[in-house]
């Protein structure tokens, strides 16, 4: 357990009174002010803070949108347009919320690849990693439900395609689908329950985020070198060091978000979703939002429907197992010359699957999709265990101070 260096001293009568009864100020002080944080975290470690900001932004914009949105098939599309046209700054709220979801996923993917690169999931941070994957699953569900709400053509048909997948489950599939839909096809009962769940899940996400940070603060942050913090000189207090560093990263991220929200707010969405849902007219090309495309590619790579659904589930489930699939004792890919190459191959595989997910399922695309799907699983099931066993890691520095300070300086600092 990481112990903060200084204990919280309440400064005035009220805080003394409160803290003696509920030490919430001590908790905040210990977790976000004096919390000892490795001094060598790079900007890839800022994405957790960015994610927290994005969650808050989604909840705030979402709650205001919900004050104007009407979850009924005959009114949903018009109510979203009413927000865009007639609610003061409604266009801003909606564009922030819709593009915010995309940026939330950009941040979570960077956060996850960061974890895979630096071995952040390794002992003693397995539970932290598992909670992270759970957060990702909740985000996917939230975004899927959210995408249905504007009730455009893509909303409707994505809902139809995805809920149909449950029909592939043997024996009980049909009943499950009917139960999920609240009927025999996607209709008002479906929209209503999806709206309810879309409102619920972000708060569950917020709850899991608390557990995630708790699980982070027991062993403390990992770091790019991957060796444990040994001496107090290896760390700096979270405030002001990381409040300013993460703060800078957050503002830069928001800048990029603002460029998209204000200058190309529809670049990340499909034009068909500006056509009201029409159950009688199938779009030429049904595609999910970009952040779900890799899984869509995996789904379609398997020739049988049930097989596709199982592969899709397995592709996410395998992430839970990563802490035990990786056999290497060295955390950071910086010191793992072979794993590092495989890491980048895996990144390219995921980018490739994203692209293939947007292509029609035919000809060369299907073959490429199958190859990349197989490689996706090989990476986890073969590369991670085998490379860990055969690879000879580079020598690790003696302390996390070594790589950041010029030679000689670390000795002086340690002696201080």
């Amino acid at each position, binding site marked *: 357990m990481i112990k903060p260096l200084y204990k919280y001293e309440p400064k005035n009568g009220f805080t003394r009174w409160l803290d003696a009864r509920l030490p919430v100020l001590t908790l905040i002080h210990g977790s976000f002010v004096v919390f000892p944080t490795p001094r060598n975290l790079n900007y890839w470690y800022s994405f957790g803070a960015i994610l927290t900001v994005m969650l808050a932004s989604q909840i705030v914009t979402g709650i205001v949108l919900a004050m104007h949105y009407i979850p009924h098939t005959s009114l949903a599309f018009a109510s979203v347009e009413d927000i865009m046209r007639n609610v003061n700054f409604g266009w801003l709220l909606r564009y922030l919320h819709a593009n915010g979801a*995309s940026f939330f996923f950009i941040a979570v993917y960077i956060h996850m690849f960061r974890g895979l690169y630096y071995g952040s999931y390794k002992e003693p941070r397995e539970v932290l990693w598992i909670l992270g994957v759970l957060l990702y699953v909740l985000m996917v569900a939230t975004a899927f439900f959210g995408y249905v709400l504007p009730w455009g053509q893509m909303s409707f048909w994505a809902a139809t395609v995805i809920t149909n997948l449950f029909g592939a489950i043997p024996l009980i599939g049909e009943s499950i689908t009917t139960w999920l839909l609240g009927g025999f096809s996607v209709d008002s009962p479906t929209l209503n329950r999806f709206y309810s769940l879309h409102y619920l899940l972000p708060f569950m996400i917020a709850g899991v985020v608390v557990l995630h940070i708790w699980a982070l603060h027991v062993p403390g942050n990992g770091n790019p070198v991957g060796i444990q913090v040994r001496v107090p000189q290896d760390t700096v207090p979270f405030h002001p060091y990381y409040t300013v560093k993460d703060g800078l990263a957050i*503002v830069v991220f928001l800048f990029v978000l603002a460029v998209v929200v204000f*200058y*190309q707010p529809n670049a990340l969405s499909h034009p068909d979703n500006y056509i009201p849902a029409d159950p009688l007219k199938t779009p030429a*090309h049904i595609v999910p939002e*970009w*952040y779900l495309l890799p899984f869509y590619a995996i789904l379609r790579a398997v020739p049988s429907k049930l097989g596709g659904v199982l592969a899709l589930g397995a592709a996410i489930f395998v992430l839970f197992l990563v802490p035990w699939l990786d056999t290497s004792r060295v955390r950071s890919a910086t010191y793992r010359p072979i794993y590092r190459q495989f890491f980048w191959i895996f990144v390219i595989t995921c*980018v490739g699957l994203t692209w293939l997910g947007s292509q029609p399922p035919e000809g060369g695309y299907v073959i490429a999709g199958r190859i990349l799907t197989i490689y996706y699983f090989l990476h986890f099931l073969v590369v991670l265990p085998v490379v860990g066993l055969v690879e000879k890691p580079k020598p690790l520095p003696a302390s996390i101070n070594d790589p950041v300070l010029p030679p000689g300086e670390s000795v002086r600092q340690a002696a201080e």
Partner: protein
Amino acid sequence: MATHILTRAARFGAVIALALFGLSASAPAQEELQEEQAHEALHFPIEAPERRSWSFDGFFGKFDPAQLRRGLQVYRDVCQNCHALSMVPFRTLADEGGPQFTPEQAAEIAGAYTVTDGPDDQGLMFTRQARLSDHFPSIFANPQAAAFANNGAYPPDLSLMAKARSVPSGFPWFIFDALRFYQEGGPDYIAGFLTGYRDPPPGEEPPPGTYYNVHFGADDETAMPPQLFDGIVRYTDGAPQTVEQYAEDVAAFLMWTAEPHLVARKRLGFQVLIFLAAFIGLMYATKRRVWAPVH
């Protein structure tokens, strides 16, 4: 040290590339290579419409009120015979950043339409002159009636048309589109569609009730007959009375109906970016100072 910076830069590049891939993937139509598209809707069976320049494109783009007024005139003289514009209230014709009629002029335009209202205190529906708070009424009672009057093809509501169509640019080029802030695929498409009628190639007779159109997104021929001919709408502001001009004017007008707050959005966006840029500068300076003793 130098190599360290280089690898950092390379990794940063990879992330940007990843993000851009993500961007592209969202608009699937954007990525499909032209040749592969022949059989898919949105992938121009014959020829992609050209890209035009618009007063409202780019960083500081604004609608040209005179153009929007001409576009409204084309809509009222021609398109309105078939297409509804149900999301547009008359009052917005007087809004800042739109066609900027005076409220009196907008009321006069509304007054030219009749709408059904009621029931009155005897329980009867009645018709009355439209007011500023009304939306453009459709001349058809419902979509079925509109389709029936058009050989079974439904003329879609045009309110959002400019955001419901696009001109995809194909796989690597979407990156440049994003960097150029290209968002005008909708109006490019509409103007292209309206000017895309040609004589069919010899031997290729369009089925009855359809018209050969090289820029139609869904097929070789469309159920919409050619509508624009030189001189059919009388402009009073001296603008050329050509098919090209009509098509661009009505496309610009439809961009406004689809995105009525575009001008406000770009203006506010600029202020927000200035603010965030200054904020970044301050945060960067603070971060440097705070970290100086540690580095």
